[in-house]
């Protein structure tokens, strides 16, 4: 193992750790660009949307609701509900960024996505809860640049692409989340508690879907599943210890 010290090295490590997500971002961003083009946005509007909103699901919603002719307020409210899950992601990473300035944290938070969160949470689990600021910058900026580029490509080539699923691109995002989930499971010691959390999350996410707006089900499902995790941990700690794991 080589010792990594300088900020530049840390930044480049972040860039490197982002690479596995590039394929997923590229295909989803491309698809988003195509849909935005179809919704009637021009290339400047697509650029601005991907630069400022920078959220896959949120941008699909904007495009979809524009096509449906929804009013401005409805579109913004829907984007808010869809993107509220970032609140949880941001809270999880917060303890790792205690030593940064407020402006550094504002910048890090603005560029937080599901995928960079997955990579960062894995890094936290491996390094005992610490994340290097420059590593995070390398990760975030690579993901951001890739996303904006993918949106522009989709917007420009949109008129020629009819079916992105031909290349398996429609599965890139799911594949990436499977990989992030596997890494998360592998990085934790408590496999038995993990299995309860995963099962609870599946049940609560599906179960809450009819009762909350789509997008909020992820947040409700995950919040309840984490409570189940706490409960299982508590229950196991008061069990007479016949085995240790």
């Amino acid at each position, binding site marked *: 193992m080589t010792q990594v010290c300088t900020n530049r090295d840390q930044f480049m490590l972040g860039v490197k750790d982002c690479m596995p*997500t590039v*394929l*997923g971002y590229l295909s989803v961003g491309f698809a988003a660009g195509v849909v935005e083009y179809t919704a009637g946005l*021009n*290339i400047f*509007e697509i650029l601005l*949307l991907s630069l*400022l909103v*920078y*959220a896959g699901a*949120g941008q699909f919603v*904007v495009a979809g609701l524009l096509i449906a002719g929804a009013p*401005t307020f409805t579109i*913004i409210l829907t*984007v808010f509900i869809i993107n*509220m899950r*970032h*609140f*949880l992601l*941001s*809270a*999880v990473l917060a303890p*790792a*960024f205690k030593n940064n300035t407020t402006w550094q*944290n504002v910048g*890090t*938070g603005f560029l*937080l996505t*599901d995928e960079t969160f*997955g990579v960062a*949470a894995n890094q936290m689990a491996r390094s005992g809860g610490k994340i290097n600021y420059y590593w995070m910058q390398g990760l975030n900026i690579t993901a951001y640049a890739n996303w904006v580029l993918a949106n522009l490509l989709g917007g420009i080539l949109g008129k020629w692409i009819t079916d992105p699923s031909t290349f*398996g691109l429609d*599965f*890139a995002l*799911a*594949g*990436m*989340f*499977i*990989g992030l*989930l*596997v*890494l*998360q499971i*592998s990085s*934790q010691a408590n496999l038995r508690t993990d299995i309860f959390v*995963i099962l*609870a*999350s599946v049940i609560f*996410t599906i179960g809450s879907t009819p009762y909350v707006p789509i997008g909020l*089900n*992820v*947040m409700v*499902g*995950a919040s309840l*599943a*984490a*409570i189940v995790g*706490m409960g299982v*941990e508590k229950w196991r700690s008061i069990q007479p210890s016949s085995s240790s794991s």
Partner: protein
Amino acid sequence: MAIDSTIFLIIIGSMIVTALPRILPITILSQVDLPNWFMNWLKYIPLAILTAILVQEIVPLGEGETWNPAHLVGTVVAFIIGFWTKSLLWTVIAGMLTVVLMNFFL
């Protein structure tokens, strides 16, 4: 080519409602000592939310969505390759290749 004013309003509004939940916890919660029970709860959020997002991707929860057989097989293969290689990149590639092959032969 110019930017339409309604579109501009939608983009700025969407940016604000997206950025706030991203920025507020990391800037505020990083400055305070969180209670133990809350840290304990946060500990399970990554696992829980990655699972929830994946469920949203695979299970047809939205209106008019149906199960995608190629995606189901892709999911199984991606999990196997994921646990075998512990590599994000190989997991994604294995899943996508499976879906391409499934679409080709089905």
